């Protein structure tokens, strides 16, 4: 119990701090913080539709948050979840509008697999650059984000543009590749898949040899190497897994929500994911909680904009302050002593 409190306390304090700071920002901008937060809560939890939207917005954050968690645990700063997500979205859009002869029970899993594979391959470029040419993954993943975005932009305005050629977007996926929804809401089966993967990642990271070796590599590559761990293989595995999870996030989003590919597909999930991962203390269970929290903010932010007149990008301020507080706490000795306790 004490251990649980110690692990959750920094996140809770960071969250409270972020709410205070963003409340101040709202007050400074001339609106009422109470009204804004009330509208935000009501938008997220005030109706079945709102609840369904919370789930919908949480799903990509959960998967990209897991992607960040597994790579950060290995000590790899993968800033490229955004690009990997877009490549995953690209994969399912190509397959889903063309391979229409496949029946759904085969086609959908296959297409989602392709999304995960594309995401992993995109991360694999950064992995190869790091392992073979000592290129810092922070820089390479940032560059790969922009290359993915450019590629996507070119494809939806060129080779993949819809048959009618009216808008810069791909053809709609054929019905075999659509993720089942719980009509009339948008909540979909992909969320269950994401939750299952979170459980699987929890077991993998904390109960398997490979997961243990990944965490050991992240804590100290030198010590891990001396203990006989193949550090390079573990780094590669962590980055590929990270890319696959982010790619899957893109695949599910296209299959369940947008059903087409277009440029502004992601509002920056890959970057929000860093806040999600850190708030969840890089553990899959924590990431689930953090993803739902940020998903709820996302879902409620439009209502907040409508009712209280506060721009929905306020959520970015909350995310940023959460990160600042957590980083600051982590560096305070009394907090790092607590978090250094064994699991």
């Amino acid at each position: 119990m004490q251990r649980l409190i110690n692990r959750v306390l920094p996140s809770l304090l960071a969250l409270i701090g972020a709410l205070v700071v963003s409340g101040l920002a709202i007050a400074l901008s001339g609106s009422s913080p109470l009204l804004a937060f009330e509208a935000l809560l009501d938008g997220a939890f005030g109706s079945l539709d709102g609840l369904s939207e919370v789930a919908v917005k949480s799903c990509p954050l959960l998967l990209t948050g897991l992607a960040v968690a597994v790579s950060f645990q290995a000590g790899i700063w993968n800033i490229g979840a955004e690009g990997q997500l877009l490549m995953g979205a690209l994969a399912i859009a190509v397959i889903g509008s063309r391979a229409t002869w496949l029946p759904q029970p085969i086609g959908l899993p296959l297409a989602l697999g392709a999304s995960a594979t594309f995401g992993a391959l995109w991360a694999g470029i950064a992995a190869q650059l790091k392992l073979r040419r000592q290129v810092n993954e922070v820089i390479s993943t940032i560059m790969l984000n922009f290359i993915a975005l450019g590629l996507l932009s070119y494809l939806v305005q060129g080779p993949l543009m819809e048959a009618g050629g009216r808008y810069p977007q791909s053809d709609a996926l054929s019905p075999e590749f659509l993720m089942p929804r719980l009509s009339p809401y948008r909540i979909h089966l992909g969320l269950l898949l994401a939750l299952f993967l979170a459980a699987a990642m929890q077991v993998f990271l904390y109960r398997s040899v490979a997961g243990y070796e990944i965490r050991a590599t992240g804590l100290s590559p030198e010590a891990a190497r001396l203990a006989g761990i193949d550090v390079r293989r573990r780094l590669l595995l962590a980055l590929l897994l990270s890319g696959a999870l982010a790619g899957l996030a893109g695949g599910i989003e296209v299959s369940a929500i947008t059903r087409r590919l277009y440029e502004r597909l992601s509002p920056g999930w890959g970057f929000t994911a860093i806040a999600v991962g850190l708030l969840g203390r890089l553990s899959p269970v924590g990431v689930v909680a953090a993803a739902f929290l940020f998903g709820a903010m996302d879902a409620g932010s439009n209502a907040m904009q409508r009712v209280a007149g506060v721009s929905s990008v306020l959520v970015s301020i909350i995310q940023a302050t959460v990160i600042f507080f957590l980083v600051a706490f982590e560096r305070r000795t009394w907090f790092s002593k607590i978090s250094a306790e064994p699991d």
Partner: protein
Amino acid sequence: MSVDLLTSLLQTTITMAVPLLLAGLGELVVERAGVVNIGLEGMLLSGAFAAMIATFFTHIPLLGLVCGCAAGALLAGLFACVVVGLGGNQVVVGTALNLLAIGATGVAYRAIFGVTGAALTVDGFALWPVPLLSQLPVVGALFDQPLLGYAAFALVPLISFGLFRTLAGVKLRMVGENPRAAAAQGVAVRFTQTAALLACGMLAGAAGSYLAVAYAKTFVEGMSAGRGFIALAIVIFGRWSPWGVLATSLLFGMATALQFHVQALGLAIPYQFLLMLPYVLTLIVLAGYAGTTRAPAALGTPLDEA
């Protein structure tokens, strides 16, 4: 290619290159001191916002520039507190800074101008044409810029001199190569990194000011559009040297400028490929560096682990 086309291409290239050059020089200084500033994009964006707001309300573009630099420096100060002061992770804090800038400029813009913020324009910086030189064909564009444009180019030899020919520059580079050795020599490591960060923030803020007040003459949410990240690439591509940063800024500026002239030039390249070019080139150059890297040795390392 006609002279007119060449002239206008060069003109756009310079306009595109100046903010990249300013931000690139800022990042160069801070990376030479051993800090990677991923938050450059956010500093640029808040610089653009502050400069635009100040210019809009006071009609004094110079005051806009001052406010733009101050906004960049403010974010840099925050970065310094968490990274240099507390030893937080540079990558994570930089990313948070970008999120913060997007949120803060968005909320403030909406609070000040409401939903219909469109068509806000400012007069922009006055141009200072150099007599005679600005009349030259083609290269005349080089001599018909606002003062900030000239200043950006003038900073290249200045920063080069400062980094490589002054004691302060030597100390700064020592911190970037080996902070422990520098500290043992009596160099104030944290002070040096904080000063470098503040300088970087001001330069990034100036880059944002140029973008908003000289180029766009308005503010649009998210208008930095990845330029901060291109500036990160420019420092690598320019091999951590001021002259390299200048050359790369012009090269990447031209790649961006070309997209406006693709049709006139009769090029069959999709504009997105031109936009991707800086990033692809940077990856290739990085891959080619293996073993011969010129990056400061302690780049990105937290102080207590260096």
